[in-house]
Each structure stands twice: as structure tokens, then as C-alpha cells.
């Protein structure tokens, strides 16, 4: 059974969703505002099997983040179907769901609850999460005193230790010092060995090459290529170089 399956998924956004005000709605009723929808994803299909790590590459605006949001269940496709089997831990933005005035420990518990853990499970995992994050005695300080690297370490530790079936990671591993990066890479490798899957979005072909066995290249919302990580990255990088020259 695939853990993630996208079937002919399309997602569009109306062009002018910026301001949700009464006068915008009235203008729309009278037909004064009319825009073609903007396609973030167009007819995207792929599957991720157990133990597989899929890297997603593409330039800005290619639809990578929209794809992760759909996989996380944050929004629904306008066409097609998204199926996800198992608990998802999204790491989409540094410290989303963290509050600067709460201590690290309080944020840790809140984050675990947001990921769907029960109180007992959270208490059980508390020590190992703190241990993994390496934050030590600072865990009882307010989060606003943390560096961005510390926030990322805490967020990553909660996500990986709470035993999800699927991890969604957006560019986040770039933060944190070298030793923590080593540790998190090791954790991700054993995570995948345990038969779980990961979607990994990155601009950096190097990180994708290191983490993933398969890659998907998105361009303007469409799948350009899906397959072995080397072949896809070569095509993607080749295209980027060509664009650069012209």
C-alpha cells in the first residue's frame, strides 16, 4: 500500500484572494472583478511507497509548497484525489505553531498535541525529544531567547520523535549546525529504514541527492520528470544551466 498517492491532482487559486473585504465581494457580485484562476498544480500523479524518500525539485513558483500542503491535508485538490495513509508530521515552516512567550518545554508539548499525540505519549517522549534537540538547560527559557537554529532543532526533534508515518520537510534542514545536521540525517535514514516515507522539498540538488532515492521535478505546476534521483537532477540542473546561458 502506498503511503502517499496523488491521482491527476490539480489545484488552482483565484488571482485576487489577497483582500477579503466586503467591497471586494460586492465588486465580484457585480462582475467587476474577473480573473483567470492561477494553476499551482496541473494534473500531477505520483505514489510514494513505504520506506521511500521522494525529493521534489523545481524553481520558485513551481508548485512544490502547494504539493506539500495537499499531502499534509491542509487544503483539498480542485481536481483529482490525494490519498495519505498514516500520521503526517509536516515541517513546513520554521517554528510554525511555536509561541515566543512560551518556554521551550511548553512549546514542545503544544507542538506534540498539534501533531496529534496524546498526553501520555507526550509525557513518555518528552525526555527523548529534549535529549535529541540538544537544547539542554535552555528548555525552560522562553522561546524568544532561542536562536533560529535552536527553534529548528526543537521543531525537528518533536516531528521525528513523535513517530509519524510520513514526514514532510520544506527546506528546513539547511538550518542548524553541522553536528545537528549529521544527527538529523542519521535519524532520517533510520526513519526510512523503518518503512516510513518522506517528501523532501529543496532548492539544493546536493541535499536532495544525499537524502533521496527518487526525485520529482516540477515546473509551473506540471511534472517534468519523475524517476531516479541522478537522472532527474541531471535533467533539472542541465535545464537550469541552459536557462542561465540564454
Amino acid at each position, binding site marked *: 500500500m502506498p503511503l502517499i498517492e496523488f491521482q491527476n491532482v490539480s489545484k488552482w487559486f483565484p488571482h485576487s484572494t489577497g483582500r477579503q473585504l*466586503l467591497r471586494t465581494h460586492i465588486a465580484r457580485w457585480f462582475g467587476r472583478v474577473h480573473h483567470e484562476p492561477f494553476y499551482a498544480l496541473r494534473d500531477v500523479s505520483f505514489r510514494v511507497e513505504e520506506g521511500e524518500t521522494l525529493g521534489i525539485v523545481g524553481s520558485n513558483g513551481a508548485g512544490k509548497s502547494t504539493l506539500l500542503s495537499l499531502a499534509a491535508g491542509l487544503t483539498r485538490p480542485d481536481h483529482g484525489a490525494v490519498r495519505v495513509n498514516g500520521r503526517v508530521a509536516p515541517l513546513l515552516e520554521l517554528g510554525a505553531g511555536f509561541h515566543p512567550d512560551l518556554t521551550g518545554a511548553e512549546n514542545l508539548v503544544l507542538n506534540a498535541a498539534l501533531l496529534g499525540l496524546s498526553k501520555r505519549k507526550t509525557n513518555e517522549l518528552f525526555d527523548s525529544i529534549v535529549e535529541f534537540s540538544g537544547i539542554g538547560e535552555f528548555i525552560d527559557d522562553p522561546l524568544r531567547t532561542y536562536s533560529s537554529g535552536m527553534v529548528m532543532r526543537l521543531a525537528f526533534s518533536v516531528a521525528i520523535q513523535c513517530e509519524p508515518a510520513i514526514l514532510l520537510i520544506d527546506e528546513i534542514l539547511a538550518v542548524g549546525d553541522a553536528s545537528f545536521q549529521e544527527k538529523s540525517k542519521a535519524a532520517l535514514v533510520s526513519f526510512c529504514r523503518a518503512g516510513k516515507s518522506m517528501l523532501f522539498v529543496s532548492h539544493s540538488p546536493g541535499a536532495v541527492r544525499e537524502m533521496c532515492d527518487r526525485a520529482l521535478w516540477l515546473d509551473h505546476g506540471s511534472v517534468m520528470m519523475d524517476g531516479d534521483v541522478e537522472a532527474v537532477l541531471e535533467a533539472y540542473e542541465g535545464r537550469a544551466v541552459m536557462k542561465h546561458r540564454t
Partner: protein
Amino acid sequence: MWNGDYLFLIRNLVEKDFKVRYRNMSLGVLWSLLNPLIMMAVLTFIFTKILAQRDRNFPLAVLCGLVPFNFFTVAWVTGTTSLLENTSLIKRVPVPRQVFPIASVLSNCLHLLIQIALLLGIILVFGRGINIHWLWLPVIWGLEILFVMGLTLTFSSINVYVRDTRYVVESANTVLFWLVPIFYSFAVIPVRFRGLYQINPVAALVLMMRNVLIEGHAPLGSTLIRLAAGSVIMFGIGLAVFAKLKDGFYSRL
């Protein structure tokens, strides 16, 4: 699909609200007590010294009106903006969206508890003893909280689509202050306008509070049934409106 521990999540969201609010206040919980006390003092001064009112129970009657009204308006307004304030969570974590307005109402319930404790304390100081009808209080308040949750689910989801909603709610609350018998009693309302008060859930709440705490008798069955039916229906409407609108939150926040 998110399949976690709802109670644990809601408890954490409520605790977050409470901690964040009181860590930034030097007087902490005292602020919750001060606001209704000041209002009570001002209204009592105006209505006993300026506009002569001879009723000894006047301050009690005012407080019985202010505590439910305060809860109702504050919970309604903060609940209405609760989805906007949690934008970063809604766009990044796949939790069921209903938890945000519900947690917002529940965190206001903590302030309500503090204010109810103040109200009951003052009732005792004024020499009104505890009576058996106090057992109605949790029922009455439970219904009111259900009603506010329904209201909040409805208005918070509409507020995502039309940001002006918040100001409509604030204006409605200003009007409500005069339409809830806070500084006047039900007895003075002309019969032809009583219908207006019969359908006002906050007015019903004030009436029942005065029945129990000042007059010392059980609330009227018909009022109670009307409030119960209204609350259940409002909660149902809230859930339905929310379910209908929630798919559009992501692209509009």
C-alpha cells in the same frame, strides 16, 4: 487525516492563551476582577446618586447583568478573530479547524470563572445566603457557553471571507449593552417590548441569574427550555456553517 487527541489539543491551546495573556500583565488575574468592579461602581454611582434609585440590591443586579454580558461580548469578539490569529497554524498544521474558535471560547471561560467567583463572593457579602437553586447555575452557564460556541463557529468562519465581520460584531455588542437589562430590571420593560427580550439569550441569562442569586427562586421552566433549545440550535448552525466554509480557509488566509 488528523486523528489525534482532541481534548489534549484543546487543553493545550487554552493553556497557551492563558499563559501568554497573563505573563504580559503585571497584575495578572486582578485585571479580570477589576473591570466588572469598576463598571459596577460607576453604574451604581450614576443610578443611585445621580438618577435616584432606591433599590438596595442595585449593585447586585448590575453585577448579575455585567458578568454574563462581559463574557458574551468578549468571547464573541475574540472568537470571531480566532481563525485569523491562528493563520500560521491553519496554513502549516493539519489539525481540525474547529478547535480554534472552541479553544478561544473555553479560554474566556477561565476569566468567566474568576468573575463568577467575584459575583458569588459579593452576593455573600451583601448577606444573600446560598440556596438550593444555586444548583441551576452550572446548567445555565453551560447553555450559554454552548450558545457562544455556536455563534463563534459561525462568525469566525465568515470573518475569513469578509474581514469586516469583526466590526459588525463589535457594533452588535454595543447595541446589545442597551438591550440587555443590565442597569434596569425586567419589571420596567413595557409589555409590548417583552417579546424582544424573550428571544435574547443574554437577557434570559441575566434574568435567571437574578432569579437564583437575588430573588432566591428557581428560573422559569419556559425561559430555561427556550434557552436550551436556542443554544442547541445555534451550536448546530455553527457547526454546519463552519463545515461549509472551512475548505476555503487555506486560500483566503
